[in-house]
């Protein structure tokens, strides 16, 4: 088994395949894998040359062999993959070495391992692209099963530039084969993946998924790879693979070439082994000559055995967060407990509300976001999965999956793009039996609550004992202490006078005696008391002082943030007090308010000289909301809407159509009106008054289309005119649109499509709507459309711009 040798001795991979095939006549754009069937002798020969040069591990010619990328006539994918494995085995025999399964028979021959090569699908995963996570998983899965059947000795996933796709591939390998898994990614000079991930986040993800070895390939030459390798050595506990190109790509006479010579290459690789690589080889542009020189130079070298690292890391697709460096902020706002609006958003499936909660917390300084969507009457696993997916498309912070529902936890962990934080496990055996297998499988940093079957211990001693129990039980699953964070539990001092003292002592002892990271839901401490922020902020500072690694708090609470900034400045955790100064140097008495759009209230203090109508026409968001607040003290909300808001919107809308007002201004006014509406809606909710909605409109960007900015513009405007908009998003299946229309008995649908290729699905949607919901009108818009085109596909109305759609909708519902 290669596992017995990995990390104990240096193992050598082979080198490039593509460049060699091009030399032998492979045309640009031609699929190299077709040669497994059409010219097997060439592939076998190349393998043989690598084995003779000294390669212990030879990659099958299957880099692009997956159903999403490989579409060749008269060439079965299964046959292509299985033949590829066979060719490596045959080459090993021809080279006088032994394929892995025949070795160990004492024939003295060198063992050669056939590594099933798995490259990326060439597609971008949702939500940035159109490939579903599970679809990617399936594509990898079938190839891996065929590879194992054909006798591959390991799976080598390489050249991955997206952690999400990497995760799909590793999961497919782990769940469907018993083969060792190697995984390498392609970094650039900024030490990032194309999708933005840094080195620690890639390592955190892969270690969490328990690959056997991980590393770097392609993208750069050996010299440029060294800084990336340095980071790998610093953070990885697993054996490291390094497979550079023969330098950076250059062009000559239309051909790409690489110019690091075999000798130079070998020199660099010697350095790379001494830095800590355990498995080395070459990628683009390297040849059997490079591998031979590398084997001659490095073959006898001792490796630096990989050492266990102690970092506690959680990651998202784009960044890693280390616990234990200062105190981290976990935003608590995505949670329905005690929040009426949030509950309503969950029931109405208003994801945008939830996403905005996430964005606000990030803007206010959160490092990690807690995600809890548990309500008795919703499908929590489905909601959790959707929320996590959507959140990771707009916020690059690591997420903390917060649920007691094991099914929801697994659903979220599976599709989470990174190494998640998990909230939580307790000292109860039942809880540990349920949660630890999930952490073992998907990776994660899990919060351990210091309570068990006997409840919450009243003293620190008892809580520390439960913490130790949790850590010991986790160890049985191979989950290390570094992946556990203990919640010392804050109990309100209104009923437990010693509550704060016990919690603080527990924190200190967990840090000093147990050496584990800690977390607290800080604001519990003041439950039942008046002016809670006073107590919360003081307790937060005390908890940090006693070693709190992360506080679960509301980052929008200025008191808490002040405590956080002050603590880090005071304790020398804020170099030159830069963060503190950055946050507070320009703050006067009012505080807060980021004003991202550059629009600050024009009125100084509370009084603005503008009327509401003017503030909306000028698109001044803060003013509009401020003035509305004042106005609504003496005027009826509906009257304000009819005398101020609607006339202002009409005025701006007319201007837009005449060409005196332009899109940004139209939208600024819309946003200002929206903020005024929000104030009025609040007021009406409190008084029980209801504003009649004019009607319900379904909006969608059609199937296959992922551009939704136009649709979003229309949505903002329609909402301003009191329409209830059901936004189905982008890339929406026609069936879902028809179903929604029928279910809600909707009279108008707005569809958008950007390109000729997607107008086809617009036409299909209209056809299905006519069959399934003949009463419903359809308006269309989008870059390629015009009146003729709209007529051709059978739309009722073509909106040249957003205002026209509004006008049509108003006419339709007025009539």
């Amino acid at each position, binding site marked *: 088994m290669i596992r017995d040798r990995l990390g104990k001795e240096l193992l050598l991979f082979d080198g490039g395949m593509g460049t060699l095939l091009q030399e032998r006549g492979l*045309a*640009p*754009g*031609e699929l190299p894998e077709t040669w497994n069937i059409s010219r097997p002798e060439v592939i076998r020969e190349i393998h043989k040359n690598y084995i003779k040069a000294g390669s212990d591990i030879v990659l099958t010619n299957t880099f692009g062999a997956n159903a999403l990328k490989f579409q060749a006539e008269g060439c079965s994918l299964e046959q292509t993959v299985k033949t590829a494995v066979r060719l490596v085995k045959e080459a090993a025999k021809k080279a006088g070495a032994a394929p892995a399964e025949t070795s160990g028979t004492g024939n003295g021959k060198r063992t050669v391992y056939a590594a099933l090569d798995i*490259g*990326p699908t*060439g*597609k*971008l995963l949702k939500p*940035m*692209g*159109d490939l579903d996570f599970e679809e990617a998983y399936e594509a990898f899965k079938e190839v891996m099963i065929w590879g194992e059947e054909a006798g591959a000795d390991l799976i080598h996933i390489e050249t991955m*530039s*997206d952690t999400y796709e990497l995760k799909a591939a590793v999961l497919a390998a782990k769940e469907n084969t018993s083969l060792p898994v190697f995984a390498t990614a*392609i970094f650039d000079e900024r030490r*990032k993946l*194309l*999708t*933005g991930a840094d080195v620690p986040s890639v390592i955190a993800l892969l270690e969490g998924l328990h690959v056997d070895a991980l590393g770097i390939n392609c993208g750069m030459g050996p010299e440029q790879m060294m800084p990336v390798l340095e980071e790998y050595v610093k953070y990885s506990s697993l054996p490291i693979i390094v497979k550079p190109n023969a330098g950076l790509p250059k*062009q000559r006479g*239309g051909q*790409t070439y690489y110019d690091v010579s075999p000798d130079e290459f070998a020199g660099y690789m010697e350095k790379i082994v001494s830095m800590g690589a355990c498995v080395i080889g070459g990628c683009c542009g390297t040849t059997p000559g490079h591998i031979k020189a590398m084997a001659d130079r490095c073959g006898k070298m001792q490796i630096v055995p990989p050492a266990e690292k102690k970092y506690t890391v959680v990651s998202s697709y784009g960044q890693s967060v280390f616990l234990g460096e200062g105190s981290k902020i976990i935003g608590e706002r995505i949670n329905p407990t005690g929040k009426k609006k949030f509950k309503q958003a969950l029931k109405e499936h208003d994801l*945008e509300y939830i*996403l*905005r909660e996430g*964005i606000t917390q990030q803007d206010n300084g959160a490092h990690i976001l807690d995600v809890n969507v548990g309500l008795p009457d919703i499908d929590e696993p489905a909601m959790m999965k959707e929320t996590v997916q959507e959140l990771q*498309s*707009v*916020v*690059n912070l690591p997420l903390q999956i917060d649920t007691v529902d094991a099914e929801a936890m697994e659903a979220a962990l599976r599709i989470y793009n990174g190494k998640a934080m998990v909230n939580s496990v307790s000292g109860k055996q039942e809880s540990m039996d349920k949660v630890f297998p999930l952490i073992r499988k998907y990776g994660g940093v899990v919060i351990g609550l210091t309570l068990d079957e006997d409840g919450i211990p009243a003293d620190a001693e008892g809580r520390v004992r439960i913490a130790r129990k949790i850590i010991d039980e986790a160890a049985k699953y191979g989950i290390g202490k570094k992946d556990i964070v203990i919640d010392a539990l804050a109990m309100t001092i209104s009923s437990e006078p010693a509550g704060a003292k016990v919690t603080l002592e527990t924190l200190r002892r967990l840090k000093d005696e147990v050496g584990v990271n800690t977390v607290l839901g800080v604001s519990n401490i003041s439950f039942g008391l008046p002016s809670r922020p006073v107590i919360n902020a003081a307790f937060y500072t005390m908890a940090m002082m006693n070693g709190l690694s992360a506080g679960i708090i509301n980052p929008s609470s200025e008191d808490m943030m002040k405590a956080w900034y002050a603590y880090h400045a005071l304790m020398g955790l804020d170099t030159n007090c830069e963060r503190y100064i950055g946050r507070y140097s320009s703050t006067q008495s009012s505080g807060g308010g980021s004003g*991202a*759009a*550059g*629009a600050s209230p024009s009125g100084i203090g509370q009084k603005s000289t503008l009327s509401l109508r003017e503030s909306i026409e000028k*698109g001044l968001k803060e003013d509009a909301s401020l003035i509305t607040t004042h106005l609504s003290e003496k005027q009826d909300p509906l009257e304000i809407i009819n005398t101020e808001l609607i006339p202002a919107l009409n005025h701006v809308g007319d201007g837009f159509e005449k*060409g005196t007002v*332009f*899109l*940004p*201004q*139209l*939208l*600024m006014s*819309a*946003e200002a009106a929206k903020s005024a509406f929000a104030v009025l809606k609040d007021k009406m909710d409190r008084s029980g008054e209801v504003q009649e909605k004019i009607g319900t409109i379904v909006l969608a960007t059609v199937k*296959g*289309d*992922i*551009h*939704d*900015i136009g649709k*979003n*513009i229309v949505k*903002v405007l329609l909402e301003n005119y009191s329409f209830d908009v059901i936004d189905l998003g982008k890339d929406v299946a026609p069936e879902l649109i028809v179903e929604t229309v029928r279910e809600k008995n909707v009279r108008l649908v707005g569809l958008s499509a*950007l*390109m*000729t*290729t*997607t107008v086809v*699905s617009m036409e299909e949607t209209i056809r299905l709507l006519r069959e399934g919901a003949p009463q419903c009108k359809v308006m269309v818009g989008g870059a390629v459309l015009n009146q003729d085109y709209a007529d051709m596909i059978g739309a009722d109305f073509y909106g040249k711009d957003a205002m026209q759609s509004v006008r049509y909708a108003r006419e339709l519902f007025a009539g």
Partner: protein
Amino acid sequence: MKEAIRYLGYGRNTADERTCTMIRNAFSEVENAAGTKCICRIFDVEQTADNNTAIGNLIIDSRSLSRNLKGCTKAVLFGATLGAGVDRLIRRTSLTDMSHAVIQQACAAALLEEYCDEQQLAIGRKLENEGLYLRPRFSPGYGDFDIRYQEPIMRMLDCAKTIGLTMTSSYMMTPTKSVTAVIGASRIKERCPVAGCEACGKSDCEYRR
């Protein structure tokens, strides 16, 4: 800046100071979110039957492209992207402020064009040493140059691996702020290589320069 204002539908009108400030801010936000990358490869060109053009092994049936490449012996296949970070940024902003999002979108489009122009000039300077002069770049989806040619072009450039540029099943590029193009190269120096918009026949377009 001027381009972004044009993309926002201002035509020849000027934007007010507040919008200009927002545009300036949006430019730097987009620049910070961008991970700009490009790739190019040069191929032999042969113009065969009426409208057929062979670029390497790829045969393209398009009258507009063949007109664009008339007299060229070589063509550069070109791919460029601002990266997925910009898509994320715009999506994030759309949730909180649509006017801001629309401005970022226009800035991203302007930035991408500018980046392509710069890269094209750089490629042009290199090729001039070999006595080759570039034509304006021409992208699938314009004129009768079918959008579906995007697929083989991206394959020939190995875009997914080299610059992280991929395509959906309906030929949309992801990340969305991306370009693929054919840039003809001929022995004869003809005209300014980066003229684009003006060459188009659609003279009533509201976004026309």
